[in-house]
């Protein structure tokens, strides 16, 4: 985990890698995907593979499995200003089972994620009902996550090992409601509402906050972060896809969010998808996100133990980001092969994050609180092959 907040990455959302049809209760496609991903920005490089396979077992049952790796090399601003650059790996494995009965699909999922200082297990279940002549899908979901937060320490033999004296628990629950609706011959709508609760050790065990040094004007000292033991969040999103001439489509989404830590957020995304001939598909997209900070966040506290809860995690600060991205897909048929068809995909996104209340501590020689605000640009690259059989 290092000082990157990977805690939420295990996620407690329903484990559903299958692509359910919008408004018909049928099993997901039989397909396999092999993806290589790379995130590079802010001194952090995260790359690795993801392999996803979905296969029908019978006419009414389907299984899916996913293997995902994050290989992390971090010299982020948190690391370079308070620790040493490090490398680590996170592996995630998940399986899903989908059962179809009349107009109902039941989905059961299980996921494990392991790092050198963090373990997560998540079980999930969802039920999806098709109704109104397959114009509407209603989906209810529940997920239960159990995490163990650890900490690494320097080993006498070199490198880092898990601290045997530090182990904390987190319990996460997620409840979801989704409705997908065919509105017209050209318009699909999708509405999702999720609420998530966390209980336990929600801190990052490495991160510190800073406060003004009472004995040295313009300087600062550090103390450990302290987070509340619970967090409850709510998120609601609406998505649409609208058919345009030449088999193109305009797609969009808008999500609002708030939680018991005082964070309010929203984002919108717009995408235009354009087929070119029978084999090429191009997509361009923009995404804009903004959030307010947690009510116990501060870039610089006025004194030691200034309040009950203390945070200086930039993900809990006030900031906004903007993403510009595109995907190119080449589809091909494979007559006579053991697969029916396939596709080759390349995706590139550029994310720019502007922090409004998180200062760049790499800048020294100025009074505490006068450092310039931090911002970063990151590249997100995906290359993947897909096969349908």
């Amino acid at each position: 985990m290092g000082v990157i907040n990977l805690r939420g990455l295990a996620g407690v959302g329903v484990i559903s890698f299958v692509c359910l049809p919008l408004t018909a209760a049928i099993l997901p496609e039989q397909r396999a995907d092999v993806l290589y991903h790379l995130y590079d920005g802010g001194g952090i490089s995260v790359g690795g593979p993801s392999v996803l396979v979905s296969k029908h077992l019978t006419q009414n049952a389907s299984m899916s499995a996913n293997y995902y790796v994050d290989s992390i090399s971090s010299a982020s601003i948190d690391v370079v200003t308070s620790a040493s650059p490090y490398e680590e790996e996170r592996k995630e494995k998940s399986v899903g089972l989908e059962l179809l009965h009349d107009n109902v699909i039941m989905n059961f999922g299980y996921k494990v994620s392991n790092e050198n200082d963090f373990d997560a297990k998540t079980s999930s279940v969802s039920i999806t009902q098709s109704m109104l002549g397959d114009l509407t899908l209603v989906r209810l979901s529940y997920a239960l996550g159990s995490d163990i937060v650890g900490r690494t320490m320097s080993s006498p033999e070199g490198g880092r090992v898990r601290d045997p004296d530090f182990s904390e628990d987190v319990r996460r629950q997620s409840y979801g409601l989704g409705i997908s609706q065919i509105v017209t011959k050209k318009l699909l709508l999708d509405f999702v509402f999720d609420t998530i609760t966390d209980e336990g050790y929600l801190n990052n065990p490495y991160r510190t906050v800073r406060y003004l040094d009472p004995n040295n004007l313009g300087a600062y000292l550090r103390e450990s972060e302290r987070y509340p033991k619970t967090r409850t969040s709510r998120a609601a999103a609406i998505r649409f896809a609208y058919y345009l001439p030449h088999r193109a489509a305009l797609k969009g989404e808008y999500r609002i969010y708030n939680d018991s830590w005082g964070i309010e957020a929203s984002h919108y995304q717009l995408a235009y998808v354009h087929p070119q001939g029978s084999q090429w598909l191009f997509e361009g997209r923009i995404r804009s996100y903004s959030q307010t900070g947690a009510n116990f966040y501060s870039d610089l506290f006025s004194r030691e133990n200034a309040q009950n809860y203390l945070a200086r995690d930039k993900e809990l600060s006030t900031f906004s980001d903007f993403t510009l991205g595109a995907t190119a897909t080449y589809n091909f048929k494979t007559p006579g092969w053991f697969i029916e068809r396939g596709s080759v995909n390349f995706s590139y996104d550029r994310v720019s994050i502007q922090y409004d209340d998180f200062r760049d501590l790499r800048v020294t020689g100025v009074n505490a609180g006068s450092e310039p605000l931090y911002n970063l640009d990151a590249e997100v690259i995906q290359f993947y092959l897909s096969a349908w059989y």
Partner: protein
Amino acid sequence: MHKLTALIVVLLCLSGCSITPWVKPYERAYLSEESMKLSRDPVSSAYFNHVYQARESARGAEGGEGGGCGCN
């Protein structure tokens, strides 16, 4: 307020039994186009969710379901 909500739910349930689909199955060709899928590639959608969850506080209500209309 609760009575009104209950009434709406009851009416929706009753009307749900009698509603005739206003978009017939044979009228869903546009909706089945690949470009219309809200989540064309689950492996890629999951990765995008992962990237944003790591850098933003908001969580939940991500995409990833949707896609097509089962009318091919």
